[in-house]
């Protein structure tokens, strides 16, 4: 079993490694993005990240008053005809003006926050 595991790791293609690394990079961004909104309550996991040039994702996991584990994923799409959001498998809805401004604030803060965390790591790894 251990040999099989090692074999799997050793024989991953460069493309697989690249895809995994890209996911890892987004995961790190998501953690940083989740902190943009203030302190995250204990027992809550909050992620906010840029999925691609047109898509922002909010993901939150928490436990409700009944002790049930809850997950909510909200996707924000910037389209040529406006900004939309979809939540947990429901159809897209246009964003209200107020929420659009809230999204704008989040988007503005995202890159500086991510750069502040990740640039030193890149520097420590020899990337200028």
């Amino acid at each position, binding site marked *: 079993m251990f040999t099989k595991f090692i074999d799997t790791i050793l024989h991953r293609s460069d493309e697989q490694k690249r895809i995994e690394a890209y996911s890892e990079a987004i995961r790190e961004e998501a953690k940083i993005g989740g902190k943009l909104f203030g302190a995250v309550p204990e027992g809550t996991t909050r992620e906010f990240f840029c999925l691609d040039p047109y898509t922002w994702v909010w993901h939150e996991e928490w436990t409700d008053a009944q002790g049930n584990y809850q997950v909510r994923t909200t996707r924000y799409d910037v389209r040529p*005809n406006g900004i939309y959001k979809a939540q947990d498998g429901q159809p897209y809805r246009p964003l209200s003006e107020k929420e659009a401004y809230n999204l704008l604030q989040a988007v503005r803060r995202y890159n500086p926050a991510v750069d502040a965390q990740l640039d030193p790591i890149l520097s420590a*790894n020899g990337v200028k």
Partner: protein
Amino acid sequence: MANDTTRYETGPEDKKMSIAGKYPRLRPEQIQAVHDRKENPVSNRYIAADLTEETILKFYAQLRTMQPDHPSDNASSVARQVFASHPKSAQTEPTSIPTAEWQTSQKPLTEVQPLPAETGSRPVEHTSTDTAAPAQAPTGLDMSTIRAQIDSIHGGAKSGQIINDPIPDVLQQFTVLGSEEPEELSRAA
């Protein structure tokens, strides 16, 4: 903070070692991925952030001033004008929204209410969970799960159906963020 100062007073070489010890050594593909997210001219996150206040302001202002007796006006054409500079405008427009639907959407959406200061930035729906023990420890973001959820969200929109029913505004939390002092600043004070 004082400890940090002391640590760096011993000289540049110590500082260098401190950084090397503090930050993880990345694999080449990880370095490339982080670098691409910032620098890749096609897909970097700075392109995604190309969403300006003027764009939003103009878009919603024009929607508000649209007259129902001008059938030639519609939200899509307005949006095409004001979002023209956004990179996504180069893509095929997936859905056009009739004016009537957008006007319906101007109804106030039911949103998460602003939070009392003592509850931090958590949405109202979550406030009752403050004292609840987690039934299952959050496992953090799992990209395969996220992507599956995103695919399911995408699937929900494939019909082109756009509904104006309210759904909670999770970003409502920004209304209280401005009054919060960053943790670091609070500690420093």
